């Protein structure tokens, strides 16, 4: 009998610690499958962020490091330079990457470091209690913007993928969504491409995955996907911003 559904070898058996309806589990699986398909399980290492996905170091079935808030690209830089025989990725949320980690991600991308970055954007801080993030949408209510994000005061959300796409060095930048099964299949292609380029040593690859946070948005899992489609995707448009492999 053909086995069509199984847990990838590159994930440990540790159960995920995510809330019901959270899409981190999907994102983990896509990354794990792509690593396995490229035959990189034994040569891969990852850097986990601070935030909901901090325990990513327990979930991926190879050596993992966990960095201080936002510093995953700096740690990954060190690992790759000390162990050029290995491949490295970071897995970061928007509270981690787009706020305190802004300097690290911009400079790692600008140096064209040999790493893949998987950036899960759900427009809010999750683990710390639903605070406003740099990616929070205009008028979106969070625990620290209870009347909605006021752009006069706080400014507009940062589009990290577009920001990085202004740099010369990055090899591949794409934004995908995890909101529907069809989107997830497309996301898988982008994640696989990033890992493939990583394997080939092409340079810095970055995939932003638009996700949800039913718990902190206060919207049930199904409706939160609809909410994200209506509100996040018009601002964070999916698409490939850079692919030197086809340019």
């Amino acid at each position, binding site marked *: 009998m053909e086995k069509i559904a199984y847990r990838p070898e590159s994930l*440990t058996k540790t159960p995920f610690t995510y809330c019901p309806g959270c899409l981190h589990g999907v994102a983990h699986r896509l990354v794990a499958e792509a690593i396995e398909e490229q035959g990189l*399980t*034994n*040569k891969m*290492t990852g850097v*986990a962020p601070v935030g909901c996905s*901090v325990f990513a*170091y*327990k979930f991926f*079935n*190879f*050596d*993992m*490091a*966990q960095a201080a808030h936002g510093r995953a690209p700096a740690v990954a830089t060190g*690992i790759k330079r*000390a*162990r050029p*025989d*290995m491949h490295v990725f970071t897995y970061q949320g928007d509270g981690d990457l787009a706020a305190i980690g802004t300097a690290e991600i911009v400079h790692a991308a600008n140096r064209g470091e040999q790493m893949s970055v998987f950036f899960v954007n759900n427009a809010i801080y999750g683990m710390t209690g639903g605070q406003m993030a740099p990616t929070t949408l205009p008028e979106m209510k969070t625990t620290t913007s209870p009347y909605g994000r006021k752009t006069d005061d706080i400014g507009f959300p940062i589009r990290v993928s577009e920001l990085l796409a202004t740099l010369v060095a990055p090899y591949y930048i794409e934004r995908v969504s995890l909101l529907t099964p069809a989107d997830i299949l497309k996301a898988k292609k982008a994640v696989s491409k990033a890992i493939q380029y990583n394997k080939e040593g092409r340079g810095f690859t970055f995939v932003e995955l638009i996700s949800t946070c039913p718990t902190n948005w206060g919207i049930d899992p199904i409706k939160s996907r609809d909410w994200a489609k209506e509100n996040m995707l018009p601002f964070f448009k999916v698409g490939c911003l850079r692919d030197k492999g086809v340019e």
Partner: protein
Amino acid sequence: MAPASVQEFADMASEAFDLADKYRNPVMILADGMLGQMMEPVEFKEPLSDAEIEAKGKQHDSWCICPNEDGEGKHHHEINSLEIDPLVLEKHVNDLYKKYDVITQNEIRYEEFNVSDDNEILCVAWGTASRIVKSAINELKKDGKSVGLIRPINVWPYPYEAVAKAIGPKVKKVYVFELNKGQMLDDVKIAVNGKVPVDFWGKVGGIVFTPAEIQAKLEACFKE
């Protein structure tokens, strides 16, 4: 680590990496504005060979991030400092403190300058301040006044015993000179443990005391 010359500063830079690697512990070099801005001749040590570097890298293979293999040999190393389970965290913290004990045993470093049983004053100073104090001590020597100096080279682990032992039979005061408001003063007080009075003079804002000023401070002590 607290360098007092540009040569020491340069030597400590590579040493700090080796110590950090050996103990898996951050190492800080406490330079000051004067050292950071002045020029002195420096001789760099011979760099390690590729083989030596490779051997150093391999000493941590049991836990560090490294390539994996299938089956029995498969490992899952985690590099992090986050432990959620209080029992695991307690063990982790206790293990860290065991490591600090080992560092304290192995890495106390200091310099004794003109320390003898004739000393009437013992100075404690580190970094640039220690060089100025040495000049003052040499001047006082010409007048037959005996002052000793302990210069901590590493300010952690601190040379408490060395400071305590250097308080000779004639010492009536321990004088701490620093280019700050007294960051090391409490350590000296712990070492002296009330045996003799401890005095302090510091300058801040990038103003550096002159040897003559230090000499005047010490001479005043002889008159007390």
